[in-house]
């Protein structure tokens, strides 16, 4: 071999070609192209080794296995764990079978979900909300009682709402890989499986707070932030401090002058790459504790990202009509740190629901 560079694999996702290194997964290859073709991921978390394959939200169809063997794969495959081959052709948003399967997954995830978004702290930055927004229906076919669990107290910092859990196992991997002792895990089987500590025990570890950041839904939330505010009323600001245990790079969430929450920084895929310690997360809540870097670049999946719920992105007719009747686009280039919802003119807000729906688009 004269050439030291590894040979790159050519992969086509939804008709767009990309070159990636061998060993890359389909999902990573699609992410390299861009958010338009990247499959949704509810359980896969790139920084956590071994995650993925469980939620089945990222199913794609492989129309051609490789250049050598161009046969299609017989079943839909989980793109987050399937490595690419040279010449692979993947159909993601362009295949109806994939869309149908994903619609099914949303339905399955929601049948036992409490849908308590109005009181859930995760609302606005919830992966399940976003996934349901893209692939869900406004109605349900499920008539039975929803599954409930006994409440467990897992310590002074973390609130566990098992009813909201989608069993992605991310918090289990987090505790395994970034803390030195895991005290929680999945107990039970099937739809009775739950996250727990077996014998009621507080999760007590310097890095335990990270399970809050990795949780795709509101199953694990920050007790110090509980019911304090809605995420879309807060202003995120990047900041850092000299921390002896972690990198100290965080996002501060302001309400007015007050820091009401500290989280790790998330990348555009809503993933934390540098985990932070509990001291930074729960104890340092004064602006004077931090060196402010500037406004956070908002992740595309956040509810406060500009025009996320733009009328033409809304799929169900109901929502579309509602949005068309009430929504006025705002300047996309505006600095989100300057957004103060209370200063917006009242006509920016929806009229009452029935009158808004009177007008057909």
């Amino acid at each position, binding site marked *: 071999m004269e050439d030291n560079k590894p040979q790159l694999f050519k992969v086509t996702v939804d008709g767009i070609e990309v070159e990636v290194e061998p060993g890359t997964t389909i999902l990573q290859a699609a992410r390299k192209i861009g958010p338009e073709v990247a499959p949704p991921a509810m359980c896969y978390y790139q920084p956590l080794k071994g995650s993925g394959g*469980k939620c*089945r939200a990222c199913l794609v169809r492989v129309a051609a296995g490789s250049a050598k063997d161009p046969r299609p794969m017989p079943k839909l495959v989980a793109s987050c764990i399937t490595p690419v081959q040279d010449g692979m052709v993947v159909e993601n948003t362009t295949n109806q079978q994939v869309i149908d399967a994903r619609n099914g*997954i949303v339905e399955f995830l929601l049948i*036992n979900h409490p849908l308590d978004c109005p009181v859930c702290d995760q609302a606005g930055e919830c992966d399940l909300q976003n996934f349901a927004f893209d692939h869900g229906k406004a109605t349900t076919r499920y008539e*039975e009682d929803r599954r409930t669990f006994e409440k467990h107290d897992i310590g002074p910092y973390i609130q566990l709402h098992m009813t909201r859990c989608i069993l992605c196992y991310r918090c289990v991997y987090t505790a395994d890989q970034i803390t030195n002792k895991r005290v929680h895990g999945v107990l039970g*089987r099937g*739809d009775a499986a739950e996250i727990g500590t077996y014998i009621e025990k507080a999760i007590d570890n310097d890095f335990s707070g990270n399970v809050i950041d990795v949780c795709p839904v509101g199953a694990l939330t920050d007790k110090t932030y509980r019911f304090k505010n809605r995420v879309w009323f807060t202003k995120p600001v990047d900041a850092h401090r000299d921390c002896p245990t972690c990198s100290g790079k965080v996002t501060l969430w302001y309400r007015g002058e007050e820091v009401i929450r500290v989280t790790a920084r998330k990348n555009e895929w809503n993933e934390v790459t540098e985990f932070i310690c509990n001291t930074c997360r729960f104890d340092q809540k004064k602006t004077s504790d931090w060196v402010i870097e500037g406004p956070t670049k908002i992740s595309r999946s956040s509810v406060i990202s500009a025009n996320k719920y733009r009328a033409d992105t809304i799929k169900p007719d109901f929502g579309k009509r509602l949005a068309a009747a009430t929504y006025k686009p705002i300047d996309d280039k505006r600095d989100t740190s300057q957004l103060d919802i209370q200063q917006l003119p009242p006509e920016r807000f929806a009229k009452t629901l029935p009158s808004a729906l009177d007008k057909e688009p």
Partner: protein
Amino acid sequence: MATKILTEHINVPGIETFDVYRKQGGYTAVEKAFKTMTPEEVVEEVKKSGVRGRGGAGFPMGMKWSFLAKPEGVPRYLVCNADESEPGTFKDHYLMKTIPHLLIEGMIISSYALGANKSFIYVRGELMYVIHILEKAIAEAKAKGFLGKNILGTGYDLELVVQPGGGAYICGEETALLESLEGKRGNPRNKPPFPAVKGLYQCPTVVNNVESIATTSWIVNHGGEAYAAIGIGRSTGTKLISASGHINKPGVYEIELGVPVEDFIYADEWCGGIRPGHKLKAVVAGGSSVPILPANLILNLANGEKRLMTYESLSDGGFQTGTMLGSGGFIVMDETSCIVRNTWNFARFYHHESCGQCSPCREGTGWMEKVLHRIEYGHGHRQDIDLLVDVAKKIEGNTICPLGDAAAWPVASAIRHFRDEFEWHITNPQEATQPGAVYRGEMALV
């Protein structure tokens, strides 16, 4: 007289002991393999025999063996899957309790062929008495020098470990079994990598069913070609069928693959016909997870030919008019069986046994069970039938392991072939919920 490979000596008194088994020609295959054959030659014979995995999937065993990765300095493992938990299947249980040395002999030969020095038999936890039988048999074989260090002076070492499972159906899935064997939660792994590359303790591993492993001693003794001469086409050899339900003679039967289904049900040699005064309504041919077929379709193919007990003939016509041989759990139902109740019972089983790892199976199995329960107890709606079909469709093929498919197929097939019966339950709830009430409408009984 039909050839018997596994059950030839099964009625000999004391066959569970080493001495009687040895007197009936036992362990000669080990001697033959160790003294006259290389491991590669054993693999070659198994390949020639065309024997297919008897656990349900029907994957050729020789091919599975040849996929085993053989990196230097890494141990290889053979694991025997004796976690038989499929409703309607009880052949491995019967084989292990009556003739344990057959499995042990097979394990020795297979381990030798694959180069494994430590092999495991993973038995489901409920069968504790079988575990004691196996352990006793292993101790006997060890005392006679067929197990342990330097077997028969060849320098080959083999240790055989019997591991009780916790009684979870999911641990019969090969990667969940390996997780459980490692002492972890029995969740199926994502594939690839397959166990042949990274299995038990991340080492190359072959997982085989009890019946598959037990055939190897006959194959070594008589040759792969003699085995392939039995049966029809790609369905070679014999198969143990666990026959249960409304037949005169329930039990485990060893058949040569290729026997017509009609003969199997009605001949005195096997099931001995439907119980007196009743007629055949439906058959689940290969354990609870394969599609159910009505009487006319199980006896004859869609084109009118006789259906045979082979992998190919049973799956003829796809799922529209066919089913699968599966693990050989042959459940026969007469006209007193309620298909709705039976389907609900199966769905309840899969709901209970889903591991809860991936969302379609975790949520979908419970949903199907609840809807079927509702229909069975007279609270169903008309749209529930289509709902069930749709939910089954959305589970099928979208899960990590085949349990999702196994849960979806019985529901989808019951509705496909017995839709009238579901509708009758929904439109006549008062009648249908009477004790012992069964749909008596138009259907093909034989």
